[in-house]
């Protein structure tokens, strides 16, 4: 447990000491919400305000996805400069390193996403306490899933140049496929089938369900799939950390 807390404490302390990363991380989701929402909303048949409310969980997903996955880039950087070795030679169980990295990435993504919640009333959304708590739970599950995806992937990379390129190439299609910006109910059948393989789709659906009460996937399926992703990705990340420099 101490090892896990050590990993989280180190990452958060490093984030705190890097004010530029901290401030950009807080501003970015607001840009997503107001620029993306206003631009797309003006052209939506739902109308600007209603569309903003619709895509709000999608913007939360976008923010959580990119912030948590790119938080994992620190692992690639640490491997490249040699800092990761100092962690790998410490007597900390490898699962604790993987879980610590996943939780610290999730925390780093959750903070700016929670800041977005302050703007809910401005969008005309007034969830009750239960819905609000449900949304927080869904956001946490989403953040942990995305962070696990980032850590399991980043642990295998050795170059900070390649990781963002691959990251963007994979993350953007996952986001557009997720139904974050349009209802999955209205998309062609083949797209619906593809969405079933996209963890972002389940995460966004879970958040939309908590906030607006409409679900595309059954609740049990979303929770089951995301939990499965978390377990498998954590196992994969643990394996890489256990391999040390042989990875």
């Amino acid at each position: 447990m101490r090892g896990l807390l050590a990993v989280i404490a180190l990452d958060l302390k490093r984030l705190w000491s890097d004010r530029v990363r901290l401030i950009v991380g807080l501003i970015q989701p607001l840009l997503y919400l107001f620029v993306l929402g206003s631009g797309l909303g003006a052209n939506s048949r739902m109308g600007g305000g209603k569309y903003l409310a619709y895509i709000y969980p999608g913007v939360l997903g976008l923010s959580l996805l990119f912030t948590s996955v790119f938080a994992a880039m620190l692992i690639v950087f640490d491997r490249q400069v040699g800092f990761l070795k100092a962690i790998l030679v410490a007597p900390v169980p490898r699962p604790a390193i993987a879980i610590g990295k996943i939780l610290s990435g999730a925390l780093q993504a959750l903070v700016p996403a929670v800041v977005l919640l302050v703007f809910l009333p401005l969008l005309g959304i007034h969830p009750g306490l239960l819905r609000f708590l449900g949304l927080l739970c869904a956001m946490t599950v989403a953040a942990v899933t995305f962070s696990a995806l980032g850590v399991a992937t980043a642990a295998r990379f050795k170059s900070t140049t390649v990781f963002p390129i691959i990251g963007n190439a994979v993350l953007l299609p996952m986001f557009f496929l997720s139904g974050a910006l349009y209802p999955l109910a209205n998309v062609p059948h083949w797209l619906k089938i593809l969405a079933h393989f996209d963890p972002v789709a389940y995460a966004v659906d879970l958040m939309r369900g908590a906030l607006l009460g409409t679900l595309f996937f059954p609740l049990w399926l979303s929770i089951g799939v995301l939990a499965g992703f978390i377990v498998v990705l954590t196992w994969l990340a643990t394996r890489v950390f256990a391999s040390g420099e042989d990875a």
Partner: protein
Amino acid sequence: MTQYAAHSTPHSVLVGVCYTRPNLQQVEKPLTESNPAIETHDLVKNYDKVEALCGIDLSVGVGEMFALLGPNGAGKTTLFSILATLRKPTGGSAKVLGRDVVHERPAVRRHMGIVFQEPALEQKLSVRDNLLLMGLFYGLGIKAGRARTADILENLGLTDIAARQTQKLSGGQKRRLELARSMVPNPDILFLDEATLGLDVDARRNFWAQVRQFVRSGRTVFFTTHYMEEAEVADRIALIDKGRIIALGTPQELKQRIGGGVILLTTEDDARAFAWLTEQGYKPEKSERGILLVSAEPAAVLPKLLTTMPVKPLRAEVHEPSLEDVFLTLTGKTLDGGEANPAKPAFTIGAAP
């Protein structure tokens, strides 16, 4: 805690740190002087089809300062990484402080400190925070971590710069901080991988003074280097080349293996001089500095050479063999990897190629 008795010598300023150690290791088998600090048997490491280590047998005693000397690509870092639990061997076995580096990794990790070739510090954090955070990784709570950090900073003379951001330190200060980081677990064995690479002479001298202080407390140091003057401070040295230990002994023993002295000749025509020396039955070696000639009695041989050689000598030196000469004689190449002589080495010691 009896195993720390060896640390409490009057010379050691690190002694105060030893007794604040957490009791994590009490359930483990005790470290005794009868266990070698490092022991490897037929250690092999292959990367695909490349043999990085080809059957290393090594034993390093507790309290010993042991150097692994060899050119780049000789297998130093691979051996280092296996002992530091960062890589698994392909074959054979290795133990550190009596614990297997594959099957008892957590136990090995609790007892070792490491300074890597690359910086393993968070540049944006202060000197103190780097040590405090590393303490968390070794099971130290906040209070114990602060006490340990304060002790280490004081012992290594870093207290004055404790609040300074790491990226603002000089190269020498950063290396001392790396050494400080390696002291956080209060290790029984210290691994140093090319730890002074790129440092100026003063900074290197300062670094080794701190390391010697650690050894004086009865603990073990295993280091890799390709600076021969650094290797000279070791109790014993292993010369490694192409994944094999080619010679092992004290610096003096290694030098004695190649004879009484080395004659260094530079002439108007080194190629012709080399050929003539070979014809006369000598075993010359080419180096960047000229022609090297190992001799049991250099003072007697040199005057004879200078009078009979058919080439005009420009400069002649006689010196005690250096480790570089030993390496050159054993492998036919220099420690920086340059080929000194395409011919076979004069003789080989250790595992057969």
